[in-house]
């Protein structure tokens, strides 16, 4: 039992304790009980190998020549770990058995953290922090990458921050950790594109005692790379610390007042037929997400009013035409009945700014035989006939006129007889 317990501390070797002949369920139960035992009692388990509990999810990107402090990743899940005198916390570089010393050295452990005074590019690599006390032992790794201070390093070392166009907002000098314990001691200077921002600047205000840079009335051209920098005294020496920020400017998507653009106030339909009335709403540049659109029948929601499903709402559609947003919800009658003629149908649209409604009624088309359709070819026939008649009349008149001219011109030579003119036509 004792040997099993000790072996459990190393997860790779724990399987040697498993009685392979037992069924799977027994194995799971056994492993579980062993793990409970291993955690609950014996302190001697942690004098040997410590289980590896994974890699810290963030990689630390820093600049050469600056002071860098790495926190043990396990400190996040165990607050106050570094101040607990019973906790033994050690650091080593991956692949090296040698622990980072606690005494005066460029790389040393202070208060459970790994200090690099200052960091060199050759420090890039993985560091392993081991936490050990009477009841717990665990190792976690964290990755550090140290870059040369050039423009090519900016995509790695920069923190993206976003502000909204035409408003005021703040940039924050991030991840100051140890350095910002006494914010009033740290005098942060702000740079935009490597140019120091003046203290008297009205647009950029560095708030003393904070790590903030307030930007008034943000404009598109305020986007770009910013840097906050300060010096930090440690062990009688001054070290530089900088953080880079890439500011992006976003335009705020405002909500707009929705406008119902269809249907018409009355819709003609014949009883017994299927009918679809779309309610179309114009939103302009506004977002469709928080715009609700629905139909009501005599002030009751369609779903409740027609539980049999004769009248239903169709699926909602959201689309854009010429960069303008629209939403549409159809009301579907299957079929139209006489009851619908006396019902008040209402399309309702609502967002945080406004509620709009549009009433529509269904009117019976007089019968299934539509006069409009029937009259169309008849009208066409009459028009053609009328046209032909007019054409003939015109031609006749034109002929008369021609005859009369002839008559006039010819009157000097021949006597004019209307009968002959008639014959000529």
């Amino acid at each position, binding site marked *: 039992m004792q040997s099993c317990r000790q072996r459990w501390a190393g997860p790779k070797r724990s399987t040697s304790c498993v009685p392979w002949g037992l069924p799977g369920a027994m194995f799971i139960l056994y492993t579980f009980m062993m793990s409970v035992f291993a955690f609950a009692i014996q302190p001697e388990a942690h004098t040997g190998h410590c289980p590896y509990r994974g890699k810290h999810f963030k990689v630390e990107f820093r600049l050469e020549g600056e002071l860098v402090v790495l926190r043990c990743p396990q400190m996040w899940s165990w607050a106050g770990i570094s101040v607990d005198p019973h906790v033994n916390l050690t650091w080593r570089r991956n692949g090296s058995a040698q622990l980072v010393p606690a005494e005066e050295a460029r790389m040393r452990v202070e208060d459970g953290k790994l200090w690099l005074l200052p960091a060199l590019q050759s420090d890039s690599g993985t560091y392993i922090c081991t936490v050990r006390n009477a009841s717990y032992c665990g190792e976690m790794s964290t990755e550090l990458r140290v870059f040369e201070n050039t423009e090519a390093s900016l995509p790695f070392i920069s923190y993206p921050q976003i502000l909204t166009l035409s408003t005021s907002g703040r940039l924050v000098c991030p991840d100051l950790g140890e350095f910002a314990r006494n914010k009033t001691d740290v005098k942060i200077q702000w740079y935009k594109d490597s140019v120091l921002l003046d203290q008297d600047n009205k647009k950029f205000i560095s708030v003393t005692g904070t790590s903030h840079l307030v930007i008034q009335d943000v404009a598109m051209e305020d986007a770009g790379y910013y840097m906050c920098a300060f010096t930090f005294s440690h062990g009688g020496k001054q070290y530089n610390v900088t953080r880079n920020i890439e500011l992006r400017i976003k335009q*705020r998507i405002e909500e707009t007042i929705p406008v119902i653009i269809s249907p018409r106030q009355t819709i003609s339909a014949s009883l017994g037929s299927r009918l679809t009335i779309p309610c179309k709403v114009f939103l302009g540049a506004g977002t469709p997400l928080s715009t609700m659109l629905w139909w009501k029948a005599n002030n009751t929601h369609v779903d409740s009013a027609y539980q049999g499903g004769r009248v239903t709402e169709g699926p909602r559609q959201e689309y854009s035409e010429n960069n303008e947003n629209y939403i549409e919800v159809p009301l579907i009658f299957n079929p139209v009945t006489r009851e619908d003629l006396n019902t008040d149908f209402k399309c309702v649209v609502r967002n945080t700014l406004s509620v709009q409604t549009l009433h529509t009624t269904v009117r019976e088309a007089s019968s299934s035989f539509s006069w409009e359709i029937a009259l169309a070819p008849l009208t066409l026939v009459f028009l053609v006939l009328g046209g032909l008649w007019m054409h003939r009349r015109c031609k006749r008149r034109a002929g008369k006129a021609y005859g009369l001219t002839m008559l006039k011109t010819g009157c000097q030579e021949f006597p004019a007889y209307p009968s002959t003119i008639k014959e000529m036509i």
Partner: protein
Amino acid sequence: MRPSRSTRRHLISLLLFLFHSETACRPSGKRPCRMQAFRIWDVNQKTFYLRNNQLVAGYLQGPNAKLEERIDVVPLEPQLLFLGIQRGKLCLSCVKSGDKMKLHLEAVNITDLGKNKEQDKRFTFIRSNSGPTTTFESASCPGWFLCTALEADQPVSLTNTPDDSIVVTKFYFQEDQ
């Protein structure tokens, strides 16, 4: 015999899924059934990410920015929203724990919420806009607001003292484009 039975079972679960997702969004027209991803960051420029299945707020540098969690949103009403992360598979909720209200991440599908208004109330947040920023009050825990700590890499939580200087309750909240 076995494979055909399993195929049938899969078919049934697929049909159930299709039917389920259709019923989940009734009334079909009123609200959008789809979820929309939003970017969220507090007025101190902290973004959200997961650490040991816990939602935390902090600063993400360079390539770490890919860890940022977008907030998936399905509105119930214009101001009432369901908030989720991880493609809407984990939803934010307010759960009472003693005198305190705690923010939980529950493994429910965001598009399935809203069928039972009372039961799903703990997932509902009231959005209020003030200038460019937004606050989120829990609908089931009135007076409790979504907040971050001033310090980075601390859990996103709920506070009933939104004006306290040690918490941040004002967020930028924009549709992810």
